[in-house]
């Protein structure tokens, strides 16, 4: 019997493997990691470092321009997915990292970090939808 085959042999009573939520969680983790890896360094550079370094004009960050940019629906969607996926990826990683640093209260760490990520995601959604 090959246990990796997904279909059930009608002659046996062997049950089908139970559906797992791991593929969904892991695909989100991988998506978050890839988006983080591709975009966070350049976003930090553009938003936080380029103006003090004198590479970009502060005029590009004028209130009027950024309000117009942030009101673009496409920009809103991109912002929501980039920030929330990076945030959830970071929260999950930080949970494992806390364990590696010797903090073994995983229940509390999980509640705290995922809770923080959930609240921040909702806050972000609220800002983008209503403000």
């Amino acid at each position: 019997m090959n246990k990796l085959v997904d279909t059930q042999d009608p002659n046996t009573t062997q049950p089908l493997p139970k559906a797992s939520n791991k593929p969904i969680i892991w695909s989100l983790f991988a998506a978050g990691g890839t988006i983080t890896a591709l975009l966070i360094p350049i976003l930090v550079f553009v938003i936080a470092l380029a103006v003090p370094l004198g590479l970009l004009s502060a005029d590009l960050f004028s209130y009027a321009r950024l309000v117009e940019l942030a009101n673009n629906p496409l920009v809103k969607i991109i912002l929501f997915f980039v920030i929330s996926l990076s945030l959830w990826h970071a929260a999950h990683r930080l949970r494992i990292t806390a364990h590696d640093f010797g903090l073994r209260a995983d229940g509390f760490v999980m509640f705290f970090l995922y809770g923080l990520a959930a609240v921040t995601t909702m806050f972000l959604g609220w800002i983008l939808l209503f403000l």
Partner: protein
Amino acid sequence: MITLDNHRLKEEMMKLANGNYIRPPARYSWWMRQGRYWRYMMRELSSLFIGIFCFILVWGLFRLAQGEAAFNHWTNELWYQSAGLCWLIFLFATYHSYTWFMVTPKAMPIKLNGKRVAAYIIIGAHFLLWLFASLVVWYAFIYGGNT
């Protein structure tokens, strides 16, 4: 208190199945013993800085929604008062990207005509993609609002 003491005893010496005792690895400082443990921890610690940056971005959007004075206050704080933190975030995020792309041949091995694609091709393609994505963000931000 009692459980803590028991815990400490157990931490100090661990009995193996064959009756021998060993000293288990240090719970808090194991990652300082070897360069690769250290690099692993620095990679994982990048998540803290990336998380902080996500909060900064969400907060910036909130300040943008509050009006011009609030937003200018936020950019001023970000650029001139948190420069050290921003550089730390940038260095950790870049290191995370580097490690993330270096493991791609192991995370998603690609086969072409039954043969494995060489690791350096997969890694190189990801680094090119990274460069391309960075350039897109850079130019989209500069020219995005001007049409």
